[in-house]
């Protein structure tokens, strides 16, 4: 794994995703830069509506309507292997691809796998919106009337040259790998015969059945109990090592991210506000938002019965009417009048691999 330490796989450059709705324009992602390296895990944290899931959708060229990628690009270093003489990388701009085209459909689910939170309430509004979304849904949604084994086998066959029998073997192997008991029998089960945790493990089996070079995991364990969650995180870590897979792990659970990610990006209102190595971020967070977020979770084992939790005052701003300057300034405990409400902070380096967008760390 060591030789791949800084081989970029996906580079997100100045990405902007906007939703043009009746009441105005919502900037779901507002100028995001992010690099995902082979075999490594990047964690994206933030509260609902901060744009973390929309970034994931943009990478798969799957932004639901009326959303649109308005600027920036996403570069994917695609590894082609079967030319007879080793590997070579093909550079593809994901944003330029036709969302219904052949290339993106090969990549989606095949080379970039994905797992989403189980109760897919977040997806309901897009069910009617166009064919490409339909495909996207079918990719991470178990069809209730078909056996789980067939669904894994189909996914494997769609992206690899294997026969039906081989695909069934793959399905059994994957079910065993994700810890489903009696996989030879379970392969013929229907989704409703499985528990919630097992269904989520089947989703992971489907996503990983083609050995993707990258996995996008959007709140993959949020709906699950801690014991199942721990199992699933173990499986993801194991598979990452065995196939050198990159993981983009999106969550609001700081406990999960601490144990999974090597690097963390903190997002607020569509922008990255801080990025650092995991140990550094938890030890020495620079942005007031990150600091507040870390202090606001009750921590297991810390005796804080009579302590109040630090909470971020106020609420997430109205997306149609964003604050001027730094978008966090109305809630920031370290707000500097005349500065934070006027100047938009720049992405500033504050340490080794540690970046922050805050005027406290800028010369102004």
């Amino acid at each position, binding site marked *: 794994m060591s030789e791949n330490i800084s081989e970029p796989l996906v580079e997100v450059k100045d990405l902007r995703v906007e939703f043009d709705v009746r009441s105005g324009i919502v900037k779901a992602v507002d100028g995001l830069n992010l690099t995902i390296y082979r075999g490594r895990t990047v964690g994206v944290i933030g*509260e*609902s509506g901060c744009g973390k899931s929309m970034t994931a959708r943009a990478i798969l060229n799957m932004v639901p309507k009326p959303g649109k990628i308005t600027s920036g690009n996403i570069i994917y270093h695609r590894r082609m292997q079967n030319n007879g003489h080793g590997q070579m990388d093909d550079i593809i701009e994901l944003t330029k691809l036709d969302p219904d085209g052949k290339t993106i459909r090969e990549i989606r689910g095949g080379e970039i796998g994905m797992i989403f939170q189980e109760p897919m309430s977040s997806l309901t509004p897009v069910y009617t919106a166009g064919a490409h979304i339909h495909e996207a849904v079918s990719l991470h949604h178990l069809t209730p009337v078909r056996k789980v084994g067939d669904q894994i086998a189909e996914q494997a066959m769609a992206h690899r040259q294997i026969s039906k029998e081989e695909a069934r073997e793959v399905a059994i192997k994957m079910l065993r790998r994700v810890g489903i*008991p009696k996989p030879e029998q379970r392969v013929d089960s229907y989704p409703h015969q499985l*528990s*919630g*945790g*097992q269904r989520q493990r089947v989703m992971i089996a489907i996503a990983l059945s083609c050995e993707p070079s990258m996995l996008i995991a959007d709140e993959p364990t949020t709906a699950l*109990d*801690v*014991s199942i*969650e*721990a*199992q699933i*995180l*173990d499986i993801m870590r194991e598979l990452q090592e065995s196939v050198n897979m990159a993981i983009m792990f999106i969550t*609001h*659970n*700081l*406990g*999960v*991210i*601490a*144990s999974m990610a090597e690097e963390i990006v903190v997002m607020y209102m569509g922008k990255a506000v801080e990025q650092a190595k*995991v*140990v550094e971020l*938890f030890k020495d967070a620079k942005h007031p938002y990150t600091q*507040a*977020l*870390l202090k*606001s*979770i*009750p*921590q*297991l*084992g810390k*005796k*804080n*019965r009579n302590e*109040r*939790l*630090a*909470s*971020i005052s106020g*609420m*997430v701003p109205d997306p149609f009417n964003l604050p001027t300057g730094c978008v966090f300034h109305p809630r920031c405990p370290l707000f500097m009048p005349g500065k934070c409400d006027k100047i938009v902070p720049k992405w500033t380096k504050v340490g080794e691999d540690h970046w922050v967008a805050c005027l406290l760390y800028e010369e102004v």
Partner: protein
Amino acid sequence: MAVEPQMQSAPTIPEADNILLEVKGLKKYFPIQKGLLRKVVGYVKAVDDISFYVRKGETLGLVGESGCGKSTAGRSIIRLYEPTAGEVHFNSRTLSSNGAGKMVNIMELSPHEMHSIRKEISMVFQDPINSLNPRMTVSDIVGEPMAIHGLDNGRETEEIIVRLLERVGLRPDHLRRYPHEFSGGQRQRIGIARALSLNPQLVICDEPVSALDVSIQAQTLNLLRDLQQDFNLSYVFVAHDLSVVQHISDRVAVMYVGKIAEMADAEELYTHPLHPYTEALLSSVPVADPLYKSERIVMQGDVADPSNPPSGCYFHPRCRYAQEICKLQTPEFRQLKPDHFVACHRAEELNLEGI
């Protein structure tokens, strides 16, 4: 072969005074019906003979994995689900003649008495979107319990509502708005204001912060704590998040497949668990510290099926300490240390790891 579980003995309460709620042998079985004639073919034992108590002004956390019966237990206390068996004793102010409080068994109350008990016990639900009527204004939602109980005095009620809204951090001009105009955290505040409108003694909170973002979750937990101090409230706090439960609770009960596995003071339970299930659960919680390396205990298999639970101790197929006796006998729920109850045959000899 159905093994009839032995009756778990009710815990003897260390200090008999100051008890607000005492639940003894509570059971809630849901029938499984099949066929054209809806013949009952079995039961889902959602809550299976549990006993616990809540003192005045304290918070009892009820934790466990999904399907363990924690929510059913919370709802059975006020007969939102009619319990199959058991007693629920409550120190009622409204049903006593002198207002000083009188122990009544909620299970034996007449509909009229039940109506007045509901002034003293209220609920906060998980989902702040579906638990509020979208066609009612905030003022109607918060004022409805008062109207139902015939306490609506026009102007005066309006003042009470305004004070409640201010107390939970909403503004008086929110009064005429509808639930959809609010964020998730604000809706949960409306639900809390409504729960407090009749000045209850006990509030049953069913996963009140699970649907909220971390910063909003912190605000809501702080609010619940402030309200508890101001109004001397007692909470039964049902949740699956062990860190949240540790933060808010004085005492914690851990449930597994309809039964209470362990109950103790929060700090005692987290640092010195006596039940292997508690130990395993604690070891699975992800800790927000990248340098923390935990020895996770892997629980084999899945949670037992409450309609067809294993013999003996329900946890034995997944327990790494299980012995022959665990398969044969249902462990008794007993007090091993002061105020620390556990249902495990091997609790004395095991030396379990806490946080």
